[in-house]
């Protein structure tokens, strides 16, 4: 274990674990969403590390497409959170346990 790719994989695992911890520990929906973004970034890092490992460009293209998907996901997710706030005016995610009109 002396290549930069190996350390990148370990860093990616660490960031992914911290992201899961953020989703578990925090209650604020926007902060939970940020933790999900962190997990997506850890996946991106893994793609790019293996793209270097295999000396191929395909992994980087997957990472590029993943960035676009993450942007779309953020737009939709934040819109859902905004709509929930607009109708419920509550902060805790446990209070938002049911979708009702």
């Amino acid at each position, binding site marked *: 274990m002396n290549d930069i790719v190996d350390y990148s994989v370990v860093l990616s695992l660490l960031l992914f674990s911290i992201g899961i911890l953020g989703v578990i520990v925090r209650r604020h929906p926007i902060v939970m969403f940020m933790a999900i973004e962190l997990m997506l970034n850890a996946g991106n890092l893994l793609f790019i590390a293996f793209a*270097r490992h295999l000396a191929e460009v395909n992994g980087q293209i997957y990472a590029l497409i993943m960035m676009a998907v993450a942007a779309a996901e953020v737009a939709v997710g*934040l819109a859902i959170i905004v709509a929930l706030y607009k109708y419920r005016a509550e*902060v805790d995610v446990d209070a938002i346990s049911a979708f009702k009109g």
Partner: protein
Amino acid sequence: MSLLEALTFFPLAILAVIGAVGMVVARNPVHSALFLILNFFALAGIFLTLLAPLLAVLQVIVYAGAIMVLFLYAVFFFIQPGQRFTLAYSLPAQALLGSLVIIVLFTLMLYTLYRGSLFSVPSIGAAESFKRGEIFPINAFGSVLFSRYLLPFELTSLLLLSAMIGAVVMTRAPRNKNILQKKGITTEAQGSKDE
């Protein structure tokens, strides 16, 4: 791993971990967002050391620029006088159990990688071509993206369009006046519960 790589990778990795941990720990969601921006910048530097300059630039523009500005707008938009954002943690027992699960998961993933063949297989020719400075030129990236991956690329634009339409539709102003009145009542109830 050359000395230059080590000198750039490890400080950036430490910064990335600091940003991630600070994002989880910070009580204020604005501080969480700023820590996450630190994490994104450190990851952009790591992408540079991993020979992905285009993705490093896109990481700064898209993630640290667009997405985090969207997050900060969402946070600022919802800070109202009656709302408390700082009581946003789980119970201590839940947090402890969650940390335990995460530690077990992390060691399990690391052990799987260690038992697998990743850490023993040398990388395929990347170091040599990196020394010659000919790996991953940007025109190779573009030619592969617009030939083999043309269909996913176009589908991505469709996805972004549909996400934009969905976001606009979902965040319309409510036409019903009763909903606004209900919201006023619940806000007062929430504020009085917090006192």
